[in-house]
């Protein structure tokens, strides 16, 4: 890895916006292809931060400033990438279920999924089951990700999964769930395919779920080489 790419990795990992922008500009000026700057610089930096998070050395402020630094660098790269045939790693429709207005956890998951190369369709909060179904079909989503904060709203998970089945799209999408009262046992109980305890693990779970999907993009988008460990690698806090 070149020195200038290392600067980009460190800048994103440390949440240093100015250095991220400077590093991306320097890498491009040195002739590094934009896709390489993205994969080996910005995405790699975000993943290093993810590892620190899992080790208990980084927390939400560090996640947010890291994503912000990545976005700053991406702002320079995006016009250059637009002409590239850079497919995403898959499309994920995400939202907080009907009757629940909780937002921040879901938004953090969406941010990190985007940062890790997924196309994310964020439906917002208080999303009806039929809206998840329609969005999944419209965007040909690989995953429908459901969030709930309250014990009173987790029953909506089953409603969404039933609606996906009723519409005949359940076989084409995987469903992952998360939120304060949600456990692996609850995920199994409602028939979800995946579950994550936090935003970093949500990215790993998406990798796992889409890796099993035809066209799920394990080979598409930013390279995953040496990046996020397997979901069962442990280390979750």
């Amino acid at each position, binding site marked *: 890895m070149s020195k200038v790419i290392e600067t980009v990795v460190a800048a994103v990992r440390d949440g240093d916006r100015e250095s991220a922008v400077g590093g991306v500009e320097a890498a491009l000026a040195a002739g590094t292809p934009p896709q390489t700057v993205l994969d080996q610089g910005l995405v790699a930096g975000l993943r290093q931060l993810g590892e620190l998070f899992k080790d208990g050395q980084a927390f939400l402020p560090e996640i947010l400033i890291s994503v912000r630094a990545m976005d700053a660098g991406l702002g320079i790269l995006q016009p250059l990438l637009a002409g590239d045939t850079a497919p995403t790693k898959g499309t994920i429709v995400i939202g907080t279920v009907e009757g629940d207005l909780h937002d921040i956890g879901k938004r953090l998951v969406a941010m990190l999924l985007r940062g890790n190369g997924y196309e994310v369709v964020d439906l917002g909060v208080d999303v009806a089951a039929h809206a998840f179904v329609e969005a999944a079909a419209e965007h040909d989503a690989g995953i429908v990700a459901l969030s709930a904060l309250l014990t009173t709203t987790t029953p909506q998970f089953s409603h969404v999964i039933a609606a996906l089945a009723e519409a005949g799209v359940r076989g084409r999408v995987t469903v992952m769930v998360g939120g304060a009262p949600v456990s692996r046992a609850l995920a199994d109980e409602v028939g979800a395919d995946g579950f994550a305890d936090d935003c970093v693990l949500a990215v790993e779970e998406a990798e796992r779920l889409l890796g099993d999907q035809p066209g799920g993009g394990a080979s598409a988008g930013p390279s995953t080489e040496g990046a996020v460990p397997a979901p069962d690698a442990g280390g*979750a806090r």
Partner: protein
Amino acid sequence: MSAFTKQRFKEICRGDRPGDFGIVGNGIHIFWPETPAAWVAQGAPQSFLHLDELDYGTPNPADEFFDFDPSRSLAEVHSGMDAGTEMHEYVPGVVAHNHSFLLNPPFQPQVFEQDDKSVVVRNSSGITERLLKGKAFNMPMWLDHPVKDRESWNRLRERLDPGTPSRYPAHWEAYAAAINSLDCPVSMEVGGFFGYLNMWVGTESLMYLFYDDPTLVEEMMETILELEMAMLRRVTKDIRLDWVWYWEDMAYKGGPMIGPKMVRKYMLPRYERLNAVIRDSGCEIIYLDCDGNIDDLLPLWIEAGINLFWPLEVAAGMDPVALRRQYGKDIILAGGLDKRELMRDRESLRREVMSKVPYLAQTGPYFPSPDHLVPIDMPFDNFCYYIDLLREIRGDEPLHLAARA
């Protein structure tokens, strides 16, 4: 069992009464305001319908029905979130909790816009939030917060003067005398640092602020510290407190929102200064309320002198039995009963209670309760059975509450 006096409370907290514990309402068994009202349809007394309208200090029908051990909060003293808290009806049928989060005067609640499904309002703490229509229980979506920069902070801090007369009951001497005549534990809120900033700034913006303007974070926390120290000194001049209550809410199921290094830098010195004032007043019990997984933060809080922790959310990975084994009698545990199990059926409920309460009460100080506020989907029959089960463990006569209702 003897009356729940100050002395008995103190002895329980010191771990001097193995097997004994309080079945306390105030600060321990807390209901979402909607819960008792929802229970009326399940056979609870009609008097449960309007508990939120009761003034502090007046007999609470729920406390009486469940025979909670007496405990008195100085909720008329505006040093935290309780004073002025109400269930505010913004438009017909849309009711939500309304806290002022230390701000005095509070913001005037206001309705900004509404459609068929929701209403956008500003609450007493200056937060703009969206509330759903047609919900028996409304957890808002925050849209905007009052502090955005130094200028807006300077405006907000005008509402944080410890000398504001309405922070204290009007007839202070009579109030203090009435409180001092009670032989039950008396508590007071002492604010918190992260929790209040989170309300004023908003979670995401606050996370950035720790990096973008750490001086402003320090300044806001210092303002809270000065307000709480001044109020504590004034109150404890006339009233003897048995426990005080910090509210932080700075963790989620994955762990704390900010790391231990930041807590040590920004919060620990301020806890230590405030706790010194608390200890000087003779108060031994310093309670901290933080949801989520607090394993990483507990050592810091203990170092700062905080010694009672609630609610110990099981869904977030908190295990009160493991905490007792790790910390012994040095800390007072409260909560830690998995509400999901208590809500399920009697067998699950009994298994959850019996696997924890007898051990925890026998091995150190413990106050049982569900691992957060009692939710609206807790069946009334389950809660009645739960209270009688606690009484059975403590050696009290059962109340046969379900039959009485």
